[in-house]
């Protein structure tokens, strides 16, 4: 116990650095994937056959393969196959490659949630809008969008909380997020070696982060309650 107290400040400092990476990846993914998901959702709902076909195939491929493999392909493929290491070996390049993988992957999941939300709005509302002489984009932004947002909040909360934990997958391309930082103490880092507790301690960070997110998303859900 005494040993842990001695190691605590060093470990917490290292875990904080790792957690900043985790949070950065989380927010960038969210900022990128939310709008991109909407674009893909429109693609797969398009009445124009080839576009919806391509979108659906794309969603199938991304949702049908593990994110870990996608990370490996996106990071290592350009250098291995094309001999153009576009990401570079440094930390920044690894982070960029991880961000791209996460944004694309999560956008596909989001797109299906959005599609459910949009198609869940009764078709009568759209017909009413058309009768009133509104354009399709007017109908979407003034009638459908807010109702869709209300409907997608619970399933999106689910995905967002999963995303916080999924960021740990980025360690496969040596992005030094919090679990990497915790594991480093097992084999030895900064004079601490063979310490197992830091890795388990990372769970506290995830729990607190997801606790805050759950509260915030719950509040958002309440705020959107006035629709029904």
């Amino acid at each position, binding site marked *: 116990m005494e040993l842990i107290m001695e190691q605590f400040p060093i470990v917490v400092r290292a875990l904080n650095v790792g957690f900043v990476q985790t949070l950065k990846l989380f927010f960038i993914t969210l900022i990128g994937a939310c709008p991109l998901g909407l674009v893909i959702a429109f693609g797969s709902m398009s009445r124009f056959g080839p576009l919806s076909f391509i979108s659906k195939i794309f969603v199938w491929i991304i949702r049908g393969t593990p994110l870990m493999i996608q990370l490996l392909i996106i990071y290592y493929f350009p*250098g291995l196959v094309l001999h153009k290491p576009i990401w570079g*070996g440094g930390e920044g390049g690894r982070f960029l490659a991880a961000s791209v993988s996460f944004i694309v992957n999560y956008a596909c999941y989001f797109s299906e949630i959005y599609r459910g939300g949009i198609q869940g709005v009764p078709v009568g509302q759209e017909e009413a809008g058309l009768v009133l002489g509104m354009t399709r984009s007017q109908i979407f932004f003034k009638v459908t969008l807010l109702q869709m947002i209300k409907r997608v909040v619970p399933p999106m909360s689910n995905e967002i909380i999963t995303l916080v934990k999924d960021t740990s997958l980025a360690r496969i391309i040596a992005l030094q997020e919090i679990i990497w930082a915790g594991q480093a103490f097992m084999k030895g*880092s900064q004079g601490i070696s*063979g310490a197992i507790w830091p890795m388990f301690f990372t769970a506290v960070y995830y729990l607190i982060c997801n606790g805050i997110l759950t509260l915030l998303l719950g509040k958002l859900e309440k705020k959107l309650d006035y629709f029904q």
Partner: protein
Amino acid sequence: MKKWIAILLTLMMTCSLAACGNSGSSEETGKEDVVKAENAGTESSDSEGESDKAYVQEKGTLVVGITDFEPMDYKDESGEWIGFDADMAKAFGESLGVEVEFVEIDWDNKIMELDSESIDCVWNGMTLTDEVLSAMECSGAYCNNGQIVVVPASEADKYQDEESLSDLNFAVESGSAGQKVAESMELNFTPVNKQSDALLEVASGTSDAAIIDSMMAAAMVGEGTSYADLTYTVTLNSEEYGVGFRKGSDLAEALNAFFAAAREDGSMMETAEKYNVQAMLSE
């Protein structure tokens, strides 16, 4: 209008499929080129036929793949990478006239990191095993390492030769050189996840002894370490540390020349003494 867009998209898809086919076949010819180049005994592996040394010098940085591994590569208080390997790498970079960038990698992916050109070399107390030698262009050995038996200090007298080890229960890192030694000597052993876990087993008494790297043992076992009650006795085999480059790279040759010069002028010994690894330097 829609028909035209449809036709256009179909064309685009066909093209992209064809492109896939093309890149596949060019990759194959690329491989053939490499095979040819190797047969011809030339030193380049990439399709442009440019040397790896020229590639690194043009880029201006030598990206060194490492893990946090005291005393070879580790961070000082200000967060800079130091250690015997790190300091030698910096000096090597200077001799090439390039910056050295250290990147922490996942050790299991080291070959993929090299081949995808995200790093230029693996320089981290890497044991020259058959796997490493077949997948990388390696420098000559610069350090000797060995697998060594760790036992509680109170029992050390009893286990000073190989014959005395047969009735002990060992803990070894799964898949490590230590496990291979234990297998070849037909010792009783339990594979554990990490070398440090093997020490934990001995310290807690769940195993009688462990087999780990002698370098690791020197750093982690004995007085003044977290395992003051343990000590190391018999060295079971010897292995060598080398630096790995991409297959066919001419940088391995350049590094051998650099090492020879550093041995000659004593700068290698000086660096080794700084990190207390002078006993391990190879001739």
